[in-house]
């Protein structure tokens, strides 16, 4: 302070501003944000200790990983044909599950949307069903169904179908609630029934988001259905599990590469479809016809100018725009004019529609599940679910508490490290910030690579290298989190406004300074929101890591079904449900406060 004390001759020295004026005020947002960071830090330290992580774990782990890689490389492609067949079966499982979920979500979403529901009870009931379907991890559904209908793809399809409702129906309902209501009133006032107004005025408005949601869920389900194989739901995951169990690691790696290729292929296909369908939707389709300005327009101008002539209703008496008053038979129209023209857009929509239908049909044929079987399996599924009741906490109370605490610890630590690591990776993978094109491509490629391996598969590999316990679980989850989060970070950064960046650079700031001053603050809201979302996902995933030996409650869950102590299973599922729900509500609340 003393250095600045040289007063200018003309102005009397102003007293330095009080400290309260140069510190940002403690707004409720700032308090919350600070508290959040503090809680996050404390929770991470607690989780770190709870799991028993130390730097030594990583240095030792590194050697173990090296040894595992040694045994894996080179990958040995022994029965590629068989694997491709299994990969296709896995994809078909995902497609079937998504189809079933979409079909079930349709009516559910209309009941769960405030503006189309039939009564408050139906609204609440359907919202509850959706929340429940989302809060129970798909793998847990699969475990229940495997015990109900036996090992095989049917259990997987049912699990996917039920769990996916949680996301699909929720997003469908949200889309319905966002529609423009005027067309609906207009259709209703023509004397149409409620159902008609839904199909004519509501459905067309929500169709693009429905399509996009279903395709997005298909992406996710392909990954999930690989994982479902691990608990006996068939497909390529089962094969991978078998290879790793019998310690044939080079075959395991070969199978992992097949899985990666499949995941990337499906993601590419669905991205192409989505872009092409939605792109056509946002671009106004114009046939380039000149605006018609016939006799009507010129007559009207005349009319306005001379209101006293208004009594005469002028009609055009000729010319191309003349209205023909034909009392005879209806004029002949060109037949083609009554059917929509085959524009490129329509061809594309039909093509994709046919492709999807063929795919669904093929999936029912090739996966050994008949639609009838889906129905007849319902009583079995019901019996298996009712075996979970009443939940029995007493037999394994300590174990459940212990497992849940460890699960939450794994989720928190993985979220923290995932977020920290994903910021640099995300910056490199953002086209507008990445230092050069090569770095950008490498970073994006790395993300695609990481995202194509489901976390549970990573966990299987790390468990093989490091042994049972929460450490491989945390590592797998962190890597998965980076794949998920860094992509969101990169996408958010690519949306950043370029104006402030140029302004900051033109003050002579370095690139790194510019990134911190103009890029990160702009992307901050979406970073915070993604982090909270990531926490949701990680807690959910960490409940099932234990199924492959990666720590947490999943181990107990798997065990209880193995010994057919279903009431204990029920207790575990109930506690997972509650913890997931609490975390979700909490992060939803924080998100709402901050954004």
């Amino acid at each position, binding site marked *: 302070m003393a250095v600045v004390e040289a007063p200018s001759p003309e102005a009397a020295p102003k007293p330095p501003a009080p400290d309260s004026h140069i510190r940002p005020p403690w707004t409720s947002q700032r308090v919350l944000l600070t508290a959040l960071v503090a809680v996050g830090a404390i929770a991470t330290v607690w989780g770190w200790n709870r799991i028993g992580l130390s730097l030594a774990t990583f240095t030792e782990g590194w050697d173990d990983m090296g040894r595992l890689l040694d045994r894996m490389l080179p990958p040995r492609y022994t029965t590629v044909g068989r694997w491709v067949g299994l990969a296709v079966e896995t994809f078909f499982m995902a497609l079937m599950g998504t189809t079933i979920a979409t079909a079930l979500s349709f009516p559910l979403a209309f009941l769960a949307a405030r503006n189309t529901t039939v009564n408050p009870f139906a609204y609440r009931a359907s919202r509850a069903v959706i929340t429940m379907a989302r809060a129970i991890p798909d793998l847990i559904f699969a475990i229940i169904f495997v015990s109900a209908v036996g090992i095989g793809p049917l259990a997987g399809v049912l699990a996917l179908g039920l769990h996916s409702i949680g996301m699909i129906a929720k997003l469908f309902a949200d889309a319905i609630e966002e529609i423009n209501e005027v067309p609906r*009133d207009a259709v209703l006032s023509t*004397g*149409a029934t409620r159902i*008609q107004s839904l199909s004519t005025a509501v459905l067309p408005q929500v169709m*693009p988001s429905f399509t996009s949601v279903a395709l997005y869920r298909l992406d996710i389900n392909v990954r999930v259905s690989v994982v479902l194989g691990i608990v006996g739901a068939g497909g390529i995951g089962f094969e991978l599990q078998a290879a790793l169990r019998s310690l044939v690691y080079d075959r395991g790696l070969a199978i992992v590469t097949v899985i990666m290729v499949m995941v990337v292929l499906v993601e590419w296909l669905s991205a192409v479809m989505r872009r092409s369908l939605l792109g056509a939707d946002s671009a106004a*389709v114009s046939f380039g016809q000149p*605006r018609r300005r016939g006799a009507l*327009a010129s007559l009207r101008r005349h*009319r306005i100018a001379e209101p006293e002539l208004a009594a005469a209703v002028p009609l055009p008496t000729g010319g191309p725009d003349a*209205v023909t008053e034909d009392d005879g038979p209806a004029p002949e129209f060109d037949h083609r004019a009554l059917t929509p023209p085959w524009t490129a857009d329509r061809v594309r929509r039909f093509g994709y529609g046919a492709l999807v239908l063929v795919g669904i049909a093929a999936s029912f044929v090739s996966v050994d599940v008949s639609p009838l079987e889906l129905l007849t399996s319902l009583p079995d599924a019901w019996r298996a679910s009712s075996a979970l009741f009443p939940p029995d906490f007493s037999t394994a109370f300590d174990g459940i508490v212990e497992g849940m605490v460890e699960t939450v610890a794994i989720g928190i630590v993985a979220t923290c490290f995932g977020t920290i690591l994903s910021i640099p990776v995300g910056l490199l993978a953002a086209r507008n910030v990445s230092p050069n094109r090569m770095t950008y491509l490498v970073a994006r490629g790395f993300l695609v690579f990481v995202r194509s391996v489901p976390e549970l598969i990573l966990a299987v590999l790390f468990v093989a290298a490091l042994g049972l316990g929460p450490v491989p679980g945390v590592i797998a989850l962190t890597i998965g989190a980076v794949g998920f989060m860094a992509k969101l970070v990169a996408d958010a950064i690519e949306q950043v406004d370029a104006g402030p960046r140029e302004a900051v650079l033109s003050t002579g700031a370095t690139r790194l300074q510019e990134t911190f001053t103009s890029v990160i603050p702009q992307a901050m809201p979406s970073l915070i929101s993604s982090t909270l979302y990531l926490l949701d996902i990680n807690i959910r995933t960490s409940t099932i890591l234990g199924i492959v030996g990666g720590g947490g409650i999943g181990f107990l869950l798997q065990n209880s079904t193995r010994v057919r102590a279903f009431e204990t299973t029920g207790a575990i599922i109930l506690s997972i449900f509650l913890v997931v729900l609490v975390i979700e509500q909490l992060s939803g609340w924080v998100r709402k406060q901050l954004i």
Partner: protein
Amino acid sequence: MTTIPHQYPAPKTPRTPPVVQVRDLTKTFANGSVTALDQVDFEVPRGQLLVLIGLSGSGKSTLLRHLNGLHHPTSGDVEVLGTDVVTAQRRELRALRRRVGFVFQQFGLVGRLSCLENVLSGSLGRLGAPRYGVLTYGKALRREALGHLERVGLDDRAFQRADTLSGGQQQRVAIARTLMQSPELLLADEPVASLDPESSAQVMEVLARICVEDRLTVICSLHQVELALGWAHRIIGLRDGAMVLDQDAHDLDNAEVMRVYQRVQPGSGAAPVPAAQTAPVRVPAMGA
């Protein structure tokens, strides 16, 4: 080509019962604290183009919504096309709405659908079952819809998406949709409020032409006095829910109508007689 009436085709003395009969209609909202309509009383003969004018909030939209049963009156009677709207059951109301076209200020088109499909949705009332996609409507219906589009001058846009059209064109598509209902009464709630003057004139022209050619009764609320004077057979002015003007458009000039828009009425002598409050309904001068 039929001959075009160059003179005002005023409705003949109604032998048939009036299309719309409103008796002492009062509507209050919020438990009686807000009076939206105050003892409104009039009838409309067939083939008349009646324009409702008044400030925003004067009750024009509320009145129109009573005519197709979207609102329920606090007291009074509303009879439309022989149906008692007040006591009608759901099914009766739907049957009535099928015969009453309604044009909205915001058009109410489904933007993603083609113009033709939007027009076709006007036939849902007679179809009964839900439809999705142009091809789910029969060929005869499609031909009919195209005819209506031609009538509003937009048949060349049949397969263009509705949201690619200008506001005035969208409103004409919306009118074509009501034509698909073969309506006996057309209600239009500020159909040109969000349009530029030229598009407004086109839309009003279409409404007036349909009114004359089909002997269709049209009740239309407007803001613009000039448009009202230019197109209406008869003008009803509303202020704070009460009728303050009901006259043949012929007998009115701009200044008289503008008085409806004055918030405070000048001395009672200068004010137009609030027709509905004292006298029985003024039937517009016939055959002027």
